[in-house]
């Protein structure tokens, strides 16, 4: 049997008064909570990194002889590094945690505080980017161990990681939009289906000019194609403005779409109360 005891006399002496926090502080507070949850939810980060490394190594073993013997100067390890990273960071987000907050009522508690509404979303996304960075680094380390050389040097590594993080964020927006729109964990999980067309109807396994027929056409419209090509340029050939600009544009377009959906879903959720 639980009992409740209070010492209200001490509370009466408090002069504390609430005041609005800055947007930056709001974002840091929400992101901090999201990041502190990660060690308790390793199931949300271990599988992505395992799958990424698994495909990285297996694909190299499967395709090395075939590709390197048929394509002059082709380095399958360097080629597969961006693919592995994209597999690792695409779909990694705290949208699942957000939907649990909605279902459990904690989202309402946040909304009843003076926290800026957008900061709730941005805080989660900042955490996502940090997680994406931290997932990219071990894959990069494994690739360096396997002998991959990053042509653009340390600055290129930084650009590579940033690109992975931003792509992860752009894709995560779809999960948040579904989370806010539906408040349903199953629906959020179904956003994973987007992963397949994005990651496999593109130049994940062979260069775009080796794709044939309809897949070649689809890959030309798939933004992931340009992100992969931008990252590959950093790894294999150097600073190519066109490839990097196209990658940035692809991320921006996907991000603009997903974030617009997110904001609309957030507005709807706030209206719905």
């Amino acid at each position, binding site marked *: 049997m639980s009992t*409740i005891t209070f*010492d209200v006399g001490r509370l009466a002496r408090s002069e504390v008064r609430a005041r609005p926090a800055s947007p930056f502080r709001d974002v840091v507070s929400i992101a901090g909570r999201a990041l502190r949850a990660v060690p308790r939810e390793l199931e949300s980060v271990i599988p992505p990194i395992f799958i990424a490394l698994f495909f990285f190594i297996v694909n190299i073993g499967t395709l090395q002889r075939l590709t390197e013997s048929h394509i002059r100067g082709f380095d399958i390890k360097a080629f597969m590094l961006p693919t592995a990273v994209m597999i690792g960071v695409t779909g990694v987000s705290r949208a699942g945690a957000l939907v649990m907050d909605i279902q459990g009522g904690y989202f309402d508690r946040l909304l009843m505080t003076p*926290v800026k509404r957008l900061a709730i979303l941005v805080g989660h996304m900042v955490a996502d980017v940090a997680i994406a960075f931290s997932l990219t680094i071990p894959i990069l380390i494994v690739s360096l161990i396997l002998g991959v050389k990053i042509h653009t040097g340390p600055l290129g590594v930084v650009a590579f990681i940033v690109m992975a993080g931003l792509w992860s964020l752009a894709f995560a927006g779809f999960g948040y939009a579904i989370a806010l729109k539906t408040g349903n964990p199953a629906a959020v999980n179904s956003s994973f289906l987007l992963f397949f067309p994005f990651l496999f109807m593109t130049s994940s396994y062979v260069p775009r000019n080796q794709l044939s027929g309809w897949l070649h056409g689809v890959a030309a419209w798939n933004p992931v194609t340009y992100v992969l090509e931008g990252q590959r340029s950093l790894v294999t050939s150097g600073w190519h403005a066109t490839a990097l600009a196209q990658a940035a544009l692809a991320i921006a377009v996907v991000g603009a779409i997903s974030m617009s959906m997110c904001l609309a879903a957030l507005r709807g959720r706030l209206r719905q109360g």
Partner: protein
Amino acid sequence: MHTNDTAIRADGLVRDFAGVAAVDRVDLDIRRGEIYGFLGPNGAGKSTTVRVLCTLLTPTGGRATVAGFDVATQPQQVRLRIGVALQEAALDPKQTGIALLRLQGRLYGLSKPEVDDRLTELSKLIDIGDALGRPIATYSGGMKRRLDLAAALVHNPEVLFLDEPTTGLDPVSRTRMWEEVRRLNRELEMTIFLTTQYLEEADELADRVGIINAGRLVAEGTPADLKRSIGNDVIVAQVDGHDGPALDALRGVSGVTGAEVRGDELIVSAVNGPATIGAVAVALNGIAPVRHLTLRTPTLDDVFLELTGNRIESSHIETGQDNDLVEVGA
């Protein structure tokens, strides 16, 4: 008109969902330092009203102010001044209690020393002890309620909303909670808006009670005034069957103003209970064997029955009568 003495005010407050009014032209005027009980059955509109007043929902009609600020146009100002413990403890089960309270303090703009001070005060206040360092998922239901209350108080709010605070608590915890609500009100002069479906709770705690049914405020006043307003005493006869003939027999008894069957009880309203109870016993004699006959003063449930034709415990929003507000007392 809003005055400095007004903590919560609503004028014709409406909130509808797809054209169905969950809150229908509700007027409230709650003074600072008052405990206001908002009483009604499930689905009557209590929680929707709280969600509007706490800025979670925008009103679709009318206007409401809390702590002097408009809930629709100045929601940030309202949020700074209210604490809310909703019906279901709104907690993150994976956080520890201390992490939740710290985050809550940060979101209210408190500095680290202020948060530390408040944590010291609140950890004594809610008596959770070492459990504050454990994940909330490991807490009992009562501990979650206490932590939820602490989270509502971390920024020292002016107005505290408690949405069915004792639902699910055992009787001892419920009684303790009542005492602490009184102390929060008495010693901190905190205005408390308390929704409940427990008649006894509203009776025990509230300075004034508003009774809501089908989204409309149907009566408002002190518990004593509300009960006095229906004027009648209540005679309860526990009988073994024969409800129909018993009701017929009671209709002819002088002083009886109404009778209804509730389970195995006949609830008889009488202008003068002591003078009528004998006649009721005689009328039932030979028609329905009476096991128990008691005389009592009206309860808030009787008030609700008088106003809506339903009991609070069995009513639902679908009952929706068109009731007019009954103003009672000073």
